[in-house]
């Protein structure tokens, strides 16, 4: 018998609980056993349980990642390095935007890139060809970068003081939103080919963004993408974020993106 809930142990486990238990503050939890099962008593939010010992931990699940992210952030800040966490769904144009940025700003910024992909060095090869120092991180089955991967990547990248480091996250609008990497700003790309509803469908990702680049705007004439609606939705989800339409291919809006970068580039120590 489970010492906490009094649920009967057995070969079968119920992934979908039988009971939802509502607390006074509106929160609730679920039980796989009936409330009248032995050993199950509630007194307000407190539980009393037969046998075993309850150890209170009260620890945030991502505490370790967040502590490492703070170390990364301190390390970058001490060197006057501007680090961006660039996120989007796969194929939104992150690498294409970075290639153009690296070529156009070659005389202005030293740009280092951390490329996150499940497999291959294709993006790293492209960024190297664009003149960047690159470290590729292959996450295998992993769907996001975390602060440990970025720490190791920064050690390998050895970005010079006062440079720009762009961390191109694994293409994914869900998981990377949860993991602080130590970046100064989060930049999220939403391409017009994905549809204008992506911000409302993936609010966690867009809520954390400091800048949203609506990319591939050169394709707008061929699509029903409603830029006003997308911008209005972003205003609700992420009121503090700057929204910039941009086309890395045609160059529309690209100077505004460069100005955004220049305004945030810390002076080298």
């Amino acid at each position, binding site marked *: 018998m*489970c*010492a*906490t*809930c009094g*649920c009967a142990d057995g070969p079968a*486990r119920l*992934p*979908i609980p039988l009971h939802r238990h509502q*607390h006074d*503050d*509106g*929160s*609730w*939890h*679920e*039980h*796989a056993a009936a409330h009248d099962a032995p050993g199950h008593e509630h007194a307000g939010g407190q539980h009393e*349980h037969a046998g*075993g*010992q*309850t*150890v*209170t*931990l*009260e*620890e*945030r*699940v*991502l*505490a*370790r*990642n967040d502590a490492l992210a703070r170390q990364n952030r301190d390390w970058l800040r001490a060197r006057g390095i501007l680090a961006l966490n660039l996120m989007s769904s796969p194929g939104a144009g992150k690498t294409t935007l970075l290639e153009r940025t690296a070529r156009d700003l070659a005389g202005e910024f030293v740009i280092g890139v951390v490329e996150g992909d499940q497999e291959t060095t294709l993006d790293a090869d492209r960024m190297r060809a664009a003149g960047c120092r690159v470290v590729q991180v292959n996450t295998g089955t*992993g*769907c*996001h970068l*975390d602060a440990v991967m970025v720490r190791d990547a920064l050690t390998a990248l050895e970005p010079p003081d006062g440079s720009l480091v762009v961390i191109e996250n694994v293409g994914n609008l*869900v*998981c990377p*939103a*949860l*993991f602080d990497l130590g970046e100064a700003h989060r930049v999220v790309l939403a391409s017009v080919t994905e549809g204008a509803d992506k911000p*409302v469908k993936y*609010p*966690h990702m867009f*809520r954390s963004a400091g800048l949203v680049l609506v990319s591939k705007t050169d394709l707008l004439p061929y699509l029903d993408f409603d830029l006003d609606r997308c911008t209005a939705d972003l*205003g*609700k*989800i992420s*009121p503090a974020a700057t929204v910039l339409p941009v086309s890395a291919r045609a160059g529309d809006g690209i100077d505004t993106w460069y100005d955004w970068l220049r305004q945030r580039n810390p002076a080298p120590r």
Partner: protein
Amino acid sequence: MHELAIAENVVETVTERLPGATVTCVHLEIGALSGVVPDSIRFCFDLATEGTGLAGARLEITEPPARCRCRACDAEFQPDSPVVLCPCGSPDVAVLAGEELKIVSVQVA
């Protein structure tokens, strides 16, 4: 699916805090705005705990609802979607609760 990474983080943290313990139950708090799906955690918890001191442990999840305060009209409200908007229409809100992603306690044998 980041829930597997979350479940692995739970295992790592508990193992680090209580080395060598046999854990029979884990109590997590996963807020409505945390970006983590409790059912997905349940789905991969057994996989993440296999071969560890948490193997076979029962998982109890409390889900605190979201609670926000509007900076424009100062009203406190409970949003009904991850797109947090005050009933007055303002998106400028402070999240008071719902972002929890926490290991509350564990039961050891």
